[in-house]
């Protein structure tokens, strides 16, 4: 199995343990792929699916699409677009944050401002 396939298989089976709607066949139907294809994905016999199918699968399994895309060796197209617009700035930023701990990275994200109320 690939890391992607293992992750998807584990997430789906964990949901299936409580809810039969998460059978391979039903999940495949809801994300618009053949059950045999999803089975091969889970067993790592084929490459991870397209970005659109990966995002549908993530939403179906209540997983973070960016995490699933990364496991499949992809970066979402909207993130690529962000980098392409200001390549030097974002390349530098990402490299500088490469080894920073999570809490340090979170410190630079935009927070919802709390005011006076």
């Amino acid at each position, binding site marked *: 199995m690939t890391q992607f396939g293992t992750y998807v298989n584990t997430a789906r089976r964990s949901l299936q343990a409580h809810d039969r709607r998460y059978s391979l066949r039903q999940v495949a139907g809801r994300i618009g792929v053949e059950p045999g294809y999803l089975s091969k994905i889970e067993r790592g016999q084929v490459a991870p699916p397209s970005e659109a199918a990966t995002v549908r699968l993530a939403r179906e399994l209540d997983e973070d699409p960016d995490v699933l895309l990364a496991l499949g060796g992809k970066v979402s197209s909207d993130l690529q677009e962000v980098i392409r617009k200001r390549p030097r700035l974002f390349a530098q930023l990402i490299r500088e944050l490469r080894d920073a701990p999570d809490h340090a990275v979170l410190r630079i994200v935009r927070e*919802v401002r709390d005011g006076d109320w």
Partner: protein
Amino acid sequence: MITLEDDRLVFRFPEVHKDARCAIEFQRTLRIPDDGLDYPLPPGMGRFPLRHLDDYARRMPTDWLRRGGVLMPMHQAEAMWINFDCRGYPFAVKIATGKVCALTGETWMNHLNTDPQDYAVLPDQPWLDGYCVAQGIVRQFVAMPLGQGYTVEEQLTGEAQHGGLQLIAYPMKAERYEEMMASVIAGAPLPDADASPLVKSTSMGLAPGGRMRQEIYDDDYGLDAWDQRHASRCFVTIANSVQWMALTGERPPTEAPTAREYTSAGLPWFDYFGGDLTAIAETDKLRGIASVAEMGAANGESPLPENESAEVERVISLRRPGSNQVRELPADSTAAG
């Protein structure tokens, strides 16, 4: 810290624990009939959009801007429910409308209280649909303009000052969480002030609508479990559709179908069973609030269009978290507006 991600408020406390994260979103839904009957839970029809207030600072009334937080659109008499997404790290969350607690009717306080309990415990509490007016019964959150007397804020304080919705989240103490996880592993139970605002600052508030069956669960952990040194809070300003379009340039979501339309289409309502959890009781303050329809009738007004009763036949029972069951309109449905 709170971030705005895909129309959800994501609360993180990395300074407390790496797992201390939860998300809160506001779901569009149909307005249940305000007819004195007790209904099951209505479906979710997608998230309301949320925007940083600061992004529209030049057009924003200064009293809105001062509060910070986010902006959300609602049509008059539209209903909503609050969805809590908590993957396991427990949180205590207070919810107020017009700075009046939705569980107790008391005015806003930044700390937690247990007598009566003024907060919901996550992840035990998956949703909150309204004001706790009786044990196991809430009155639905329904948007009404401030100044007409319908909102809970106006009914209980006599003033139309704040409107909107207020939230504050407290993570469980890290050491308590670690103890709990260890026992689980061991198998134990588990602004630009000079710019002229483009909109008037009269905002929307939330008022009590129809009755539905929903329990708000007692805190099994106890007050001492919560890390009250760390909290994040947010003011959600509710804009009507005209204000929303003037500020953001976006169209608000379409209005939900009526309860009767939805039910006639054979679409499901929901019930939720919290297992052995016990529900908190209502307070005297909230027991005495009048619903929008009751107040309208007393005033000779008809504030709720299309308030006919619905005969609910199809109810889906949902159980405690872990099964990823969703309380949403079926994807193949065409009944939603």
